[in-house]
């Protein structure tokens, strides 16, 4: 119990950010018309590619002789950037179609 309280008091800022971000996410999406659900999902999908920042940190911090860390980091960066580039590009392509062509 004490450990839990200590954890909370040490990470209070983090907890605030976490809770507020959850609410922002919910509020942003709540009233989106169903026309946009697919682009929204693929756009959100691209955002989750932000995990690439972590993959980059792995590679930046890896010892050049630590082949395991470099190798895993390499794959993580490749997968992450596919998610980012592919996600944003396909969302853009989809939204292009929604433009009114008159």
């Amino acid at each position, binding site marked *: 119990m004490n450990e839990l309280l200590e954890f909370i008091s040490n990470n209070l800022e983090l907890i605030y950010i976490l809770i507020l971000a959850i609410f922002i996410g919910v509020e942003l999406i709540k009233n989106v018309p*169903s026309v946009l659900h697919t682009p929204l999902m693929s756009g959100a999908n691209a955002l989750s590619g932000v995990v690439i920042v972590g*993959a980059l940190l792995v590679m930046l911090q890896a010892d050049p002789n630590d082949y395991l860390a*470099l190798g895993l980091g390499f794959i*993580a*960066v490749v997968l992450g950037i596919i998610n980012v580039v*592919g*996600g*944003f590009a396909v969302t853009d392509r989809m939204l292009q179609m929604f433009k009114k062509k008159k």
Partner: protein
Amino acid sequence: MSITLSIIYLISTVTFVIGLKMLGHPETAKKGNIISAVGMIAAIIGTIFLHDFEVASINYILIGAALFVGSLIGWLIAMKVEMTKMPELVSLFNGFGGASAMLIGLVEYGNNTGDAMQTSTVIAAIIIGSITFTGSLVAFGKLNGSLNDVRLPKYNLINNILILGLIAFGAYIVMMGADSTLLIYVLLAVSLVYGLLFVFPIGGADMPVVISLLNSLTGIAAAITGILYGNMVMLVGGILVGSAGLILTFIMCDAMNRSLSNVIFGAFGGDSDAIAGTAGTSASGGTIKKTTASDSAILLNYASKVVIVPGYGLAVAQAQHVIHELELLLTEKGIDVSYAIHPVAGRMPGHMNVLLAESNVDYDKLIEMDDINPQFPNTDVVLVVGANDVVNPAAHNDPSSPIYGMPILDVENSKHIIVNKRTMNAGYAGIQNELFFNTKTSMLFGDAKSALTELVSELKNM
């Protein structure tokens, strides 16, 4: 971390929030997507150039190579993919994001100092990342048609034991002080297997919900790695996706009148015993009435209000362009034409809208379920193309039906219904449809594209 980099992360975070907000409105969506993308690029470039580690040049070369290869692959996939394959694509990208988080977790486990907080985040990243990874691959395979529903006996019990075991095992590793490489590989293996078992039993008709749930999990995995590095842009970006995905999941469940636990543990769809009455008679003994393209054309020609109900079958037959041609032709004749879009039409939320937009259908013509339902009694002809479960009256009047209670398009209230289907086979959810035996219904059998093309040429000759 340099102050410049912190400021870049802050700006990126703000672009994510603004971008996501703008994605929610048809006029601003495109710009919103670009704003988020710019924020993301800034965060990536900032991370590479503004850190304060000692980095060997070989690392830089490898990073450059990884970014180049990945960008190229991502770009090519995004440009080549067919819009009917969007659900598969989103699943695949989800899996990649999850795998990335999993790999980060694995590397950081090796670097950890035994701090309980740090170890728990590493373990959470590995568990959630791997579940998302294999779960998404299974979802991809199912959407693709290459994997069928597989249910082990007592799969719910097995899955529940497995997930509880995973959590307990993770907690044990944290308390042990985390220095066993073997344990972490066991944890990894069990998580990967759980991802498979978790999605395998879920029926095809529930895939829209599963994709959105996995999308949410990828976000959570990213957020957890953000906590690991104390990196705010990852934390906030991940949580935004996580909560947005969860809300979409609940919207989808609502649209099908199912609870999330029912989707995950209920696993209906594709049961062989549900596919009954594939011959010409229904359970209640009704018969079906076949029609021809010319008869249907006459019916449409003398209508004053026509509603088209497109389903995934339309997209599979690549008939989006023909249906648009039909719509223009009828509009020219002074007939009021609109499209009725069920919230779960297609294979993912909003999928049908994308498919029709691709063939230049004006989105003012796409009417959502709640707005179109009151219009059906005034509708002369409803043309159902490749849709099935979303117009199945069993949802209203058969309490034993697996889709009982799901809101549907009430097409049976209109004056005539023409249903285009290839065969009498049951729909994606694997259940028979009484609508086809309704006396007001005529069945126009055949591939959607050729049937509609014939319909268009008949109409042109009138």
